[in-house]
């Protein structure tokens, strides 16, 4: 009954989505408030039914009900409970159900908390959400239904792909989907604005926090996915420019641009049309990401669905929504009123520059990801666009962006003072130059670019700190007053500083990891010693162990630094009988932000084992950076003040500073 009730709930959600997508539109057209209010109750009811449906699937997994095809194909009775639950979205059908559940959640939130929205705006927004939801319910029910049954259930399931049996699956997909689907809100708002032909203050007030929520989750989701790949795949790589990774990076870049232009829009009522376009692009790229991963066009770790009929269906959804929204944009954008003038050198100008670089970077990733696919479709040639392409295109776009980044927050709204901003960044610049000089002296003759890149990162971090120091008037007023001012600063300002510093931190990690990474790859027998970056790793023994649904071969290494024993590392190799596949479980030893990484290969006839040992200096900074960025986003989100970009009269700025 659980399975069938969940199935029926999903069908009802589809029916409600269809009503939600039409009735409120008619209501808005004829100005009938009752019809417009249908959007709200149907959105809430839809959330209820999808949540019921999702809960039903979770229960089926927990009970190991193998009469459901989907459970049979992706679960196993001996799997630990955590992986039974996370396994719900560890495959195509379940992950699509999670997708719509999150979509319904966002729709429900708009319905529940959208009291300060104009009635017709809310009706339009929810109707657009209804279109998206209806399309995806239909997709799930017709091509990837998780509730199909087997009349005579098998005794045991086929188990989940072992690579996915990891805590990462509990975190990475839900985060990523919260990010992807979160952009649907700004998309719906954009479409609603285009349909209505007007953008008002409530519009801007709503779009920024929703974009911020989506962006925070997407940032964490991508970082988490990267760390997961790093420790699970056994190669110590954290970013491969794999098309699936790019698919998540593109909405992130567009979303970051949207976030910044939404600030301009909220504070200064400018860049309206551009913000609308970015909203459409961010969600379109999210849909594209879903399409690339789910259609089976790409083969990778993520492509656990390869079925052409699904691909065609998703392609239809994609054409409908992206094509439709862009057509609507082309048709209606001119009807929107532009507002808010500003000088080229100003906060707005800086944000426009940011937008230009971010969208260009997004475009290069787009080309690098889709060009090989397009070429294969048209000519049948298979080419692969790898890291060199992205390093050569993405890198040069990001360098000027990072150079310009510290200037932005220091410029005033409407008209800014570039020279003044540069003066205030002197300290950061000096810190960067010192760092470059020290690194050159230290590494003499090594890579030329690495010290420069680290200098740039220091400049970015220093710039973020300078901005804070400037606002606190640190070193110009007594410390106690500066502290008081720091407490009084809007949390959004702290958020900006954290997020910008996070980029610098991540950059340091990336440069250090790629430049000064050292490795040992070879075969070892018990009592052999390998030495990497000053560490001695002694292979003590190799043992076997039985896990809940796998056999495990564990190698025990004793790590010593300068003769002093530090710790024992136990990398292992797991063998999953049901799927006849194995995974490597790397062992990590963290020293500060650096890590020692050991993963196992195959054993040979003589009992020796292939071992890969890496020393990765400051590698953890790569993920601390995004965490800092997300934390900055949270701070900014918690700042519930209404935002008014008060244009500073030139004299007023001086008047603020205390007399010396």
């Amino acid at each position, binding site marked *: *009954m*659980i*399975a*069938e*009730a969940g199935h*029926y709930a999903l*069908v*009802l959600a*589809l029916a*409600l989505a*269809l*009503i939600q997508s039409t*009735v409120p539109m*008619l*209501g808005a057209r004829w*100005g*009938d*408030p*009752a*019809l417009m*209010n*249908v959007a709200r*109750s149907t959105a809430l009811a839809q959330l209820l*039914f999808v949540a019921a449906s999702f809960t039903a699937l979770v229960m089926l997994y927990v*009970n190991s009900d*193998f009469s459901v095809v989907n459970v049979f194909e992706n679960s196993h*009775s001996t799997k630990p409970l955590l992986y039974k639950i996370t396994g719900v979205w560890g495959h195509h059908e379940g992950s699509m159900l999670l997708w719509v559940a999150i979509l319904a959640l966002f729709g429900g939130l708009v319905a529940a908390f959208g*009291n*300060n929205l*104009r*009635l*017709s705006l*809310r009706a339009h927004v929810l109707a657009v959400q209804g279109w998206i939801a209806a399309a995806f319910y239909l997709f799930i029910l017709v091509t990837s239904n998780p*509730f*199909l*049954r087997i*009349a005579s*259930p098998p*005794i045991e399931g086929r188990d989940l792909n072992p690579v996915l049996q990891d805590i990462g699956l509990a975190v990475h997909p839900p985060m990523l989907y919260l990010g992807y689907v979160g952009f649907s809100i700004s998309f719906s708002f954009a479409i609603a604005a285009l349909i209505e032909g007007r953008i*008002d*203050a*409530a519009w801007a*007030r709503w779009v920024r926090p929703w974009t911020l929520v989506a962006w925070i989750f997407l940032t964490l989701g991508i970082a988490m996915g990267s760390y997961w790949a790093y420790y699970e795949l056994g190669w110590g790589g954290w970013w491969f420019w794999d098309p699936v990774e790019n698919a998540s990076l593109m909405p992130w870049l567009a979303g970051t641009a949207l976030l910044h232009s939404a600030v301009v829009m909220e504070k200064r*009522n400018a860049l309206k049309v551009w913000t609308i376009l970015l909203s459409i692009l961010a969600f379109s790229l999210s849909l594209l990401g879903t399409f690339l991963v789910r259609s089976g066009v790409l083969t990778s770790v993520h492509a656990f669905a390869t079925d052409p009929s699904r691909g065609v269906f998703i392609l239809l959804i994609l054409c409908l929504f992206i094509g439709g929204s862009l057509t609507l944009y082309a048709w209606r954008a001119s009807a929107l009123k532009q507002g808010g003038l500003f000088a080229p050198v100003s906060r707005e100008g800086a944000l426009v520059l940011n937008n230009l670089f971010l969208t260009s970077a997004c475009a290069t990733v787009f080309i690098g990801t889709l060009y090989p696919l397009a070429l294969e479709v048209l000519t049948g040639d298979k080419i692969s666009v790898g890291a060199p392409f992205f390093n050569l295109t993405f890198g040069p776009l990001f360098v000027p962006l990072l150079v310009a980044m510290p200037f932005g927050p220091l410029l005033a709204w409407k008209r800014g003072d570039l020279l003044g901003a540069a003066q205030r960044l002197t300290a950061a610049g000096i810190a960067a130059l010192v760092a470059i000089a020290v690194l050159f002296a230290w590494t003499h003759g090594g890579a030329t670019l690495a010290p420069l890149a680290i200098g740039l990162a220091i400049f970015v971090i220093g710039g973020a700190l300078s901005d804070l120091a400037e606002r606190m008037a640190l070193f110009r007023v007594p410390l106690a007053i500066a502290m008081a001012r720091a407490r009084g600063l*809007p949390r959004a300002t702290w958020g900006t500083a954290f997020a910008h510093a996070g980029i610098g931190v991540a950059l340091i990690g990336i440069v250090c990891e790629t430049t000064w990474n050292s490795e040992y790859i070879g075969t070892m027998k018990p009592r052999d010693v390998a030495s990497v970056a000053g560490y001695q790793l002694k292979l003590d023994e190799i043992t*076997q162990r*039985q896990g809940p649904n796998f*056999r495990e071969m564990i190698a025990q290494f004793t790590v010593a630094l300068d003769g002093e024993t530090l710790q024992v590392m136990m990398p292992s190799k797991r*063998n999953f*009988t049901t799927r006849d596949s*194995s995974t490597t479980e790397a062992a990590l030893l963290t020293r500060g932000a650096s890590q020692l990484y050991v993963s196992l290969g195959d*054993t040979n006839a003589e009992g020796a084992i292939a071992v890969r040992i890496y020393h990765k200096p400051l590698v953890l900074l790569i993920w601390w950076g995004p965490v800092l960025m997300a934390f900055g986003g949270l701070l900014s989100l918690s700042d519930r003040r*209404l935002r*008014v970009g*008060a*244009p500073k*009269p030139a004299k*007023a700025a001086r*008047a*603020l500073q205390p007399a010396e």
Partner: protein
Amino acid sequence: MTLWFVFALMTVAAIFAVLWPLSRGSSAQAGGSEAVVYKDQLAEIDRDVAAGLIGLSEAEAARVEIGRRLLAAADGERNQPAHANLGLRRASAVVALVGLPIAAVTFYLALGSPRLGDFPLASRTRMADASQPLENMVAQVEAHLEKNPTDGRGWTVLAPVLVRLGRVDDAVRAYRNVIQHAGDSAERRSDLGEALVIRAGGVVTAEAKGEFERAVAQNADDPRASYFLGLAAEQDGRKADAAAIWRAMLSKAPADAPWRALIEAALTRVGAPVPPALSDDAMAAARDMNEADRGTMVRGMVDRLAARLKQDGSDVEGWLRLVRAYMVMGERDKATSARTEARQAVAGDAERLRQLNEGLKNLGLDG
């Protein structure tokens, strides 16, 4: 019946979600207007000034700007009359009351299986699970061997079971331990080699070939090692070598060796002529027999083949040989019934069925 009751409840809830706002009529003029946001913003500026976050002149500039937007918004909002559209409301209500349940149930019935109950694992009997005790035993033996890794006899027992359970990697390791702790022999080397071949998906790897060569070095007549060495030659593209190895095996083999059919099939595959099913001595003996004795001997062989195929029907070559034998002996009805049995035996495997039908066509017995 409870299921349909639950469905009905859910449907009612869904219908209610649509009807409820419709019934509330035009009194529900909720929702914010733009002016509210601007008024909030003005209040916010006052609070900021009070808290000392922004200066007075900045606050004034901001108030002016918000005031401008407020005026613009007030202009825009005037042309928004709200009026009830009864016709549309009634139509929506009808859609919710009639259309929604019909559409939902129709759609569901096309996809769902309302007659199937739940089958949670806990409620199902474990009697049918024959593999469970075996796996438990294996786990016990493995635990024992973990403590006494030098127990050669234990490894000898465990290894073939692991192969059967599909845990080939572990089986390879187990066979290595057998050789290490229970002593080396041709048969054990062959076991290990065979496990290696299974692990490689049927390819005789260099590693496996090494094991078979060691086996042959200890016992030149080990049939399994010889067969796989022939297979290795075949996979290397040296078909003549393969055929030579296999022919040598057949010439040395006893007439009733159970693997004879396998080798003959292999020889056919590499395109070498199959030597007569009897060794030279047996043929010489057969020549000396009288007609009746020879007939008995041939019949005995054919019956043995038929009996073997009754037990394991997956051997297509064997079936074809049997049919051919009946045809030669002039027993066409038996050939036809063998053909029917063969088709039944391999019906589950499309590839084998195809091979069988092709072979039958060559014998002129298709249909």
